[in-house]
Every structure is written in C-alpha cells, then in structure tokens.
C-alpha cells in the first residue's frame, strides 16, 4: 500500500543507486476497474521527464529505483486514456457516487494487485488531510493517547466519478457510467453541486431520457442554466423526452432567444403541446397539467381498451385512469386500471365506466386542484376547457408539489445563490 503523497518528492535513483531526480507524478491508464500505473514523471535538473513503468523496479515511501542506468526520454508519450494522478486528480473535486455528493481528493491510495501497482481508492478523510501536512504520525500518537481513532474515509475507485474539469488537461471523454445508473433524483442532487461546465459535461454523457429525468428533478433555476448551456438541438431532444407540463414550465423560463430556437428544433407535435401548455398561467390547473393521458371512445370493449393501452405504452403516472371521451373530445367517463382488468374482455366500457367524472377547468387554481384530488382520493384529476373537452390531467405528484414549501430550508444557503428560487 502506498499513498501518492508519500511518493511525490521522493528521490529517484538509478540501478547503481545514483540519485537522478525526484518523483513528480504518476501516470495511470483509465478504463480498468482499478487503473494500473503505466508511467512515472521525474523532475531532474528543473525539467520533467516521463518514464515507462517497466523501467521502475521499486516505488515506495522512500523513493523510486530504476532498473536502468540510462534514461530514454523519447519512448514515452502520454496516451489519450492516461491521466496524471497529482496534476489531474489530487486536490480536485470528484463525485462520490455512493454518497451522492461532490468531495475533494485528499490523497490517492495505490495497491499492489497481481504484481503491478494500481490506483484503488480515493482518500477523502481527515487522515489523508493530516498526511498531506505531514502530521499523520503525530496525530495518531496523540489520538492513541486519548484512546480515539483518527477518522479515515476512503472511496473505492469504482465508486467515484471524476468530473469533467478535473481532467481537463487530457482530452478524455468521461463516460460517467456510474452516474448514469443513479436514480434521477440522486443524479439531480449531484449535478446541483457541480460547477456549470461540469454540469454540461455530465448531462452531455447521458442519453436523452436519463438527462430528461434528471433535469426534471432539478430546481427551476438550475434547469434553465443547464438547458441554455447545452447545444440547442440537444436541449430540444431532451425537452421532447420530458413530461410536457415540466417541459412547458422550463421553456417558459428560458430567455426569449433560446425559447424560439429550441422550440423550433423540437418535433412539431411536442413543440405544439409545450406551447399550448405555456398559454396557461403558472398557478392554474392548466399550468400544472400534463397533456399525456389515455383517452378512448366509449364504443370500445374492455379487451380493445387493454389492447390500446399496450399500443400506447403510457408511463407510470398516467396509466391508472383511462378517460372516456365522445366524438367531440368531451369527457364522458373514467375507468380505473382495476375496473378494466376485472371486467370481461368483451364488455363495452360504457357499461361499467364511472360516468360522472370529477374534473376542473383549466383556469381553476392550484389549491382547488389539490383540494379535489384530496377529497376524491384521486391519482389524477382531468382538466377540461369551458366546453367540457378534455385538455389534460394533473397527476397526484404534481398536485402535491404545489403544497410543499418552495425551497427546502435544511440547507445552508449556497452563498446566496438560491435567492432566485425562494421568491418564485
């Protein structure tokens, strides 16, 4: 086991024991689970030379010993997948995927695995910090005297994700594999902590759907920042994947210029939907409703309706109620998924649908929506226009959102940055 800080600055000797310089940095190849050390950077006579790892016979806290006596500096070139540990990782910020937060690298831990040295973990604990100050030994002695432990904290290399800026010195495309597997809400929490350029880097590496889910979980201000920093075409793709009501909220917050550009790049159908939703004031039923819902004509049978559902593949929030409309799109009934499944396949849905559906108008207030949802124990509430035509639905999760106090008060202000949200 070796910590990077223990090796840096130690003497490098050749085969005969003659000092030739000092350890300046180590080079690892990214990609493997535990990146192997592939080279060493040595400072000698005020300049840096790169040496192949093969030419190093031994590296420990006392320094490095080379297997050669002649240094060949021409052979080594830093390859695209290689990074320098001190320059690119030490003291930088990385994402702790398990802990869902951004942390700073205090030290890097290397271990011998199958005969070669690998980067295995990131030290983010107090012991690493103390080691950097050369105080670890002293501190441990004191701690032992007081019968206390020195807090140590390591994160396995597999559970970290270097952020984009961290390794800006090399043109390495970070795949953010670990991040992509997180729940959108967790991913949003992490992205919220990143600087602006890193956010764009992470979003760029996700697929449209994952990006849309994560953006959907963010604060409105963050959403706008990110979308305006993305390529407009990419932003349009992501918006198409979002729920139309969320997309409409977001698009409304964009600058005039970006809004026109991004909407122009979206699929016509999605863009129209978003624009229609934007015409409703934010604090009305129309403003919080989504246009994604399942509506079928009353003439279908239960079996046909289930077939229709299979075709449409509605998402989780909207599948529980099937709305029944007449030829003018007027809402005439509603059935639950349960009603549909327990009914015999050849029964007409008009015979068992609930034909006095509860609905509110597009101009109803948010409070009214929440009240109705609570009173009738609904999972979703249909929203109709003045003619009774079904325009959209408010799902229970969106109805609840309006009840919550806006920003969570648990956090220390990011030095005033939340000022915009708290009053919105």
């Amino acid at each position, binding site marked *: 086991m070796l910590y990077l800080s223990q090796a840096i600055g130690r003497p490098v000797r050749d085969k005969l024991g003659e000092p030739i310089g000092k350890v300046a940095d180590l080079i690892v190849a990214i990609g493997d689970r535990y990146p192997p050390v592939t080279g060493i950077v040595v400072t000698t006579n005020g300049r840096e030379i790169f040496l192949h790892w093969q030419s190093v016979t031994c590296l420990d806290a006392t320094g490095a010993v080379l297997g050669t006596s002649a240094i060949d500096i021409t052979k080594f070139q830093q390859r695209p997948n290689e990074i320098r540990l001190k320059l690119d990782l030490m003291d930088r910020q990385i994402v702790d995927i398990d802990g869902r937060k951004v942390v700073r690298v205090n030290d890097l831990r290397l271990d011998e695995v199958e005969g070669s040295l690998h980067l295995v973990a990131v030290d983010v604990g107090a012991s690493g910090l103390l080691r950097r100050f050369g105080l670890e030994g002293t501190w441990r002695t004191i701690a032992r005297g007081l019968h206390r432990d020195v807090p140590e904290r390591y994160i396995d290399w597999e559970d970290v994700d270097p952020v984009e800026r961290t390794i800006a010195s090399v043109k390495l495309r970070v795949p953010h594999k670990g991040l992509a597997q997180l729940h959108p809400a967790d991913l949003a929490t992490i992205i919220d902590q990143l600087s602006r350029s890193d956010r764009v880097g992470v979003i760029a590496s996700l697929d449209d759907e994952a990006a849309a889910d994560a953006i959907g979980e963010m604060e409105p201000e963050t959403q706008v920042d990110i979308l305006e920093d993305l390529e407009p075409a990419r932003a349009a793709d992501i918006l198409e994947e979002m729920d139309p009501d969320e997309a409409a909220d977001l698009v409304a917050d964009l600058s005039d210029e970006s809004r026109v550009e991004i909407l122009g790049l979206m699929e016509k159908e999605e863009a129209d939907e978003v624009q229609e939703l934007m015409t409703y*004031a934010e604090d009305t039923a129309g403003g919080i409703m989504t246009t994604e819902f399942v509506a079928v004509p009353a003439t279908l049978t239960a079996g046909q309706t289930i077939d229709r559902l299979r075709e449409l593949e509605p998402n989780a929030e909207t599948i529980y109620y099937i709305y029944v409309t007449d030829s003018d799109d007027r809402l005439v009934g509603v059935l639950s998924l349960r009603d549909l499944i327990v009914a015999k396949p050849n029964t007409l849905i008009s015979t068992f649908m609930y034909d006095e559906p509860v609905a509110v108008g597009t101009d109803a207030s948010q409070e009214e929506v929440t009240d109705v949802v609570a009173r009738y124990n609904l999972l979703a509430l249909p929203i109709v226009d003045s003619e009774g035509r079904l325009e959209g639905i408010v799902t229970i999760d969106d109805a609840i959102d309006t009840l919550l106090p806006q920003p969570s008060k648990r956090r*220390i202000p990011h030095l005033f940055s939340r000022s915009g949200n708290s*009053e919105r």
Partner: protein
Amino acid sequence: MKGPLIALSPRAVNRVRFAAILGVLGPGLVSGFADNDAGGITTYSLAGVRFGYNLLWVLLASQIVLFFTQEVGARLGLATGQGLAGIVREKYGVRWAAFMVSAMLIANVGCIIAEFAGCSAALGLFGVHPAVSALLAATVVVLLLTRGNYSKVQYLFVAVGIGVSLAYLVSAILARPDWGLAASSLVVPRLSVDKLYWLTVVATVGTTITPWGQAFIQSYVADKRLGPEDLMGSRLDVGLGAFLTNLIGGFIVIACAAAVWAVGTKVDTGDPQAIQQIAHALRPLAGEGATVLFAIGLLAASFLGLGVVPLTSAYAACEAFGWETGVDWRLREAPAFYGLLIFFIASAALVVLIVPLSGLIQVMFMAQVLNCLLLPFVLVFVMKLSSDKSVMGSLVSGRFLLTVGWLGTFLLVALSITLVVTSVFGL
C-alpha cells in the same frame, strides 16, 4: 428569425421582470455595501475627525484598486466555477490553500470582532450592557444562517446601508464643508510623516479592500453559476459597487471633517466620549439626535457585516479542506462548518466582553489594520491565478489588468511592510 413565433406567456413575463430586479443587485454591489460595515464606518469617521480632508486621496486610490481586485475575483469565479480557496488548493496544493485560508481567517475573525464591537458600541450609547449586545450579535448570526431568507435580508441591509449613506451625505452638505479643499485632497495626496497618519491610511485601505471581499465575490459568482458571458455585467456590477462604497466613505470623511475636525475637536480613541464625538458628524442633519442616528447606523452596519463575513469565512475554510458540499447541511452532517461558526462567534463575543466599552473604537480600527496587513497573502494568489491560462481560459488577465493588479498588490505589500517595520522598531 427562424422557428415559430412564440407569444410571451404570462409565466415568461413574470420571470423577465423578476430577473431584471435581481440583476441590479449583484455581488459587487452587495459586497460594496458590506464594506461599509461597523469597521468601515468607524475607520472612515476616524480618518475624517483626525485628518480632515487629507485622507480623501486614499479613498480614491483604494476605490480604484478595489475595482481591479474585485473584477479579478469575479473573473476567477466566472472562469472556474469555484471559490478562491478551492482553486488555490487545486493549483498550489493543500498546504498553500491552508496558508491562505489561515491568513484570511485571522483577518476575518478580526472583522467579526469588529462587527461585535460595533454592535456593543452602538448599543452602549443607549446604556446596554456589552454582554447583552454580544448575545444579540450572536443571535443575529445564528438567525441569519438558519432562518434567513438571504435574498430578502440582503435587501433590508442594503436599504439600511443606503439610509446611513444618505444621512452622511445630507449631513456633509449641511455642514458646509470646504468643497475645494475636499476636491483637491481627493487627487493630491497630502502626505505626512505622522505615524498615526499612516496607520489610518492602512486601516482605510484595509476596510475597503478585504480578504473576505475577495472570497465573497468569487464564491458568489461561482455559486450563482454565472459564466463567461456574464463578464460585462459583472464588471459593471463590481465597478458600481466599488464606486458606491467609496462615495459613501467619502461623504463620511467629509461630514466628519466639516462637522468635527474643522471645529477643532480632538478625538482620542481611548476617551469614553470619543464615540459621541464621532457621532457629531451627523449633527448638521439630526441635531441632538445625532448620537441616536449614529448608533442605529452603526448597529445596522454591524449586522450587515455579520450577515456576510462569518458565512464567507466558514465557506472558504470548508472549501480548502474539502468539506464544502454535503447532501445537506444539517448540524450532524457539517460539523466543521458549524464548528467554525461557533468558534467565530465565541472568540468575537469573548473579545467584546473583555475590552471595556471605551476601547471598542480602537478594536474596530485595529481590525481594519490587521485586514490590510493580511490582504497581500490573499491577493498574491488571486493575481497569480488570474494570469494562469490553464485556470482562466479565455478570461485570463490581459497585460493592462495584470500590470495594474500587481502594482496595487505591491503597493499594499510595501505599505504593510513599512507599517510592520516602523511599529517593531518603534520609529
């Protein structure tokens, strides 16, 4: 224009208006107003009552340097998206980061002590016991951090700041100062070999350009996720902030010069009456109510500083040691952050309880001297980083900015060294 024409929705209209209001009050303005905290008001007042108009040139000079240092700070935030301590650590390692943050923390503890002293001195004018004042100041810090809707509180502070400034402005005009002398003093340095003169010069610079101000502007810009395209807006904001700060400072000096110094009052900071004498600068406006007005202004200024300095300090320290970002900031999750805050509050409270009421002005004054002495340790990093292309990218300082910035830094270093040397050798 390509794409469909989109009508501005009711939502969009709301947002645009709100953004416009927020945009006016940028970090430069906030930090500018916060510069006129308890230490600021006291130091500018002392400059005026001790040396009349003579130190106005220092205000102009430090205003210019303040603009450049704040501009560089904002640019660092725009380019890196990180606070000062974080980027120093990434670039120069954890030891240098610890060094810089230590210098900053010492200066900031001085500032926080000055805010507590301001609070005690202000309430002392109404006969409030220092222990009660210290308790009040501590409560203000805690409330601001835990309950504060920061954006609204800021507006309140700035409003009070503007109120105090107007009071001094009106007072300065009513006192019929020697405008000609004031104007010429602004551009022509009237130097002196008096030691107190130079100490006051150092304090005036130290209250205007501060280590915490550097950390504040950069963190603010970074946390607002502003980017390179916001450069011009930031410059405008910073310029306006620097200008207003010293405009207010200038009127405090002029009011004090005209209403106190010109009538021959000698103010001795050790004198229990000193604070009343300083308050006389507001007499032309408020008459016998001058003391009350001054006390209110000083109290508000203290709160203004308490709202910014402790938070900025704890923030910088956490950033240097990698404790800055947690999932949330509940007490259990961020012991370092809250530990630091408790340390700040406790040490400041302790000082104001030990120092007698008559010594508080001197405490506030000397805290500004300390600020100036420690400022170079922060500015050197700021200047070095701003000229580093690998950090700044396209926002790297041009030759002009670099020259002015380094010149200002070297002047500060020279000033500090001179002061230390003369003090040590008792010259």
